[in-house]
């Protein structure tokens, strides 16, 4: 599974520019599903049909393909690019980073001279793509072009690190579950959504079209186990996290209980998660049409929205087993 994770996290795909990552995911998931299509906003919807054709639930799983990034807003006379953020990216973390555009062009994030580090804002930063002047820069990139962090995957043994674990690790969990799930009594929609980082937008439209009985997002969550971090009960290596609440969702009590019951039955390590800030695609799914009972399986992740997001391989595998355990059984809600 590590090869799959490496491929997904290293692929380019800021919100709104998901073509390359969608193509990669389609290749990976296609052998394990009965059909796959792309909706008008670019969501990839892959379906595994119920083995017996009826009686099961229509379950929508959502993992988002997009990653945070930056977008070029201006090119100056000397060929430096000014930019804005896509999703929750911070100027402090961008400083000194390299970013990469869809065509492979690499840029360095530089900063104006600051009297006080507190003055660091997006408007003090620029991207240097090595151009000598405006004309040369304009030949390489254009206004409105998007870039993501330029970082590789590293296997630290039990722990894995990369950019874009948020939420390619969720996508990887879904693909792996599709692969291992031989038969299911349910109609399972594996939806790889777009534009989650800019407002859960892909989940909103795909859920409207899929019209599921149950919604489950698979996404990352914070941990409270780093030195002097914000207190939170979730820890790396503590197993799959079952969400109780975040800013976008109060998990449906029955969906939450179902997840915990499957975890206990299948002896999968799990922990409950209360996230004080942040949301997932389940926030959009559960408000679709007349309402969809929804929950979230979270992969505990350190340093979210930095170029070095860290997950525990054991947790990842626990999430795969949990997801498989849920969608592979008949569900009575």
């Amino acid at each position, binding site marked *: 599974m590590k090869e799959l994770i490496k491929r997904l996290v290293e692929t380019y795909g800021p919100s709104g520019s998901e073509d390359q990552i969608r193509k990669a995911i389609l290749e990976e998931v296609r052998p394990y599903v009965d059909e796959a299509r792309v909706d008008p906003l670019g969501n990839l919807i892959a379906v595994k049909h119920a083995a017996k054709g009826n009686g099961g639930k229509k379950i929508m799983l959502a993992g988002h393909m997009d990653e945070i990034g930056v977008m070029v807003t201006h090119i100056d006379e000397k060929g430096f690019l000014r930019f804005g953020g896509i999703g929750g990216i911070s100027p402090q973390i961008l400083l000194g980073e390299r970013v990469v555009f869809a065509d492979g062009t690499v840029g360095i994030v530089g900063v104006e001279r600051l009297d006080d580090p507190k003055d660091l804002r997006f408007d003090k930063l620029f991207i240097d793509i090595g151009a000598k002047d405006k004309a040369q820069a304009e030949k390489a990139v254009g206004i409105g072009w998007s870039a993501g962090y330029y970082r590789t995957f590293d296997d630290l043994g039990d722990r894995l690190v990369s950019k874009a674990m948020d939420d390619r690790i969720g996508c990887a969990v879904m693909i792996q579950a599709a692969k291992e799930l031989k038969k299911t009594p349910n109609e399972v929609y594996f939806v790889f959504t777009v534009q989650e980082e800019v407002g859960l937008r892909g989940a909103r439209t795909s859920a409207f079209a899929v019209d599921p009985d149950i919604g489950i997002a698979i996404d990352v969550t914070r941990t409270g186990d780093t030195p002097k971090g914000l*207190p*939170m*009960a979730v820890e790396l290596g503590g197993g799959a996290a079952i969400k*109780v*609440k975040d800013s976008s969702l*109060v*998990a*449906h*009590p029955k969906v*939450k209980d179902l997840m915990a019951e499957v975890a206990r039955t299948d002896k999968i390590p799990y*922990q*409950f*998660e*209360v996230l*004080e800030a942040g949301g997932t695609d389940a926030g959009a799914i*559960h*408000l*679709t*049409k*007349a*309402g*969809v*009972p929804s929950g979230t399986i979270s992969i505990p992740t350190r340093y979210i929205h930095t170029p070095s997001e860290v997950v525990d391989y054991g947790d990842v595998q626990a999430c795969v087993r949990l997801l498989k355990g849920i969608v592979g059984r008949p569900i009575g809600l």
Partner: protein
Amino acid sequence: MGENVIRVCPGTVRVDGPGQWGRLAEEGPDTALDTAERLETKSFLKALSEGSGVSGYEGPIGAMVAEAFRPFVDEVRFDKLGNCIGLRRGEKPKDGPPVKVMLAGHMDEIGLIVTKVEERGFLRFTDVGGVDQRTLPAQEVVVHGRKDLPGVIGVKPPHLVSPDEAAKALKKEDLYIDLGLTGAEAKKLVNVGDLITLRRDFTELKNGLVAGKAFDDRAGVAVIYEALLQLEKLHHTADVYAVATVQEETGLRGAITSAYGVVPDLGVAIDVSFGDQPGVPEHQTAPLDKGPGVAVGGNIHPKVYEALTRIAGEQGISLQIEASPGATGTDAWAMQVSRAGVPTGLIGIPLRSMHTSVETLAMGDIKKAGRLLALFIASVDRAFVEGLRW
């Protein structure tokens, strides 16, 4: 009432004397249950207030609401998110299908949720929906673990507080819940993610005022109940969808899905607004027991507002005007943009000490709001709905 605020401008409603509303005066025979069998509105509010139903976990309150609505509606159902929807059918209209009026009062309450069970058995928590953390120290709570457990929110003795600390308001991170359990016992009975409600008896103050928790917005549910009682005595052709919504405090979520499911021709939300109290500017509040507030502003269809105020004037129901220039932070905000749009009205019950466990209101305002709502519903017909088109 959610995060956004309603600004209130004190105003008076011009009373034009009894109008031409023959239908309204023509009250039908009292076919309602004997008064003795009816749950009195105040008792209903007491039961709701002392019940438990934090946003997302409204089950017990929903059951209570369904039972109370049942004698006055043709059917009651729960939707997938737990909204309780009672349908009271009107008399068959002569001009086609009945108009659908949706009433929304949210039954969820703000509360707390366990974030950590500590080694010594103390619980750490955060809030759900906007509890005022300044009001938490020394409160009694119920922790909904494997079973309901009584607890108290502990505070450091003042003798041991440094002068620096004493000057600062306590934050929820500084507080903990004591269940009297050892660490091992607590871990057996309580999980991260278990819900917590504040514990507070419903108290009757003087002059018809009452105090308690969760009046925001079980007062709105009580208004809907009062309206259903009043409708027993009126003729109406509109079908009334009495909806006790869920998860308003976490983002108007129940109203979003219930309005989609009901597909109303018009909607009226009933929520609380800021009552007058010391330390709060007069122009942002409304006095208690001077009648419910009727909101006007971008969230409100002008003709729904006009009808509500006109009927109040004709029937001698005192009310107050609430000017709401932007988002009202109520279910009306969600209902208005459901599907292709829903003309919306908003009634507010003036409430002191909002989002605390000693919310205070006047029962008289609830009665008046219920009567106004019932009279408004009785006045609604196909022609009125057609007239709402721009």
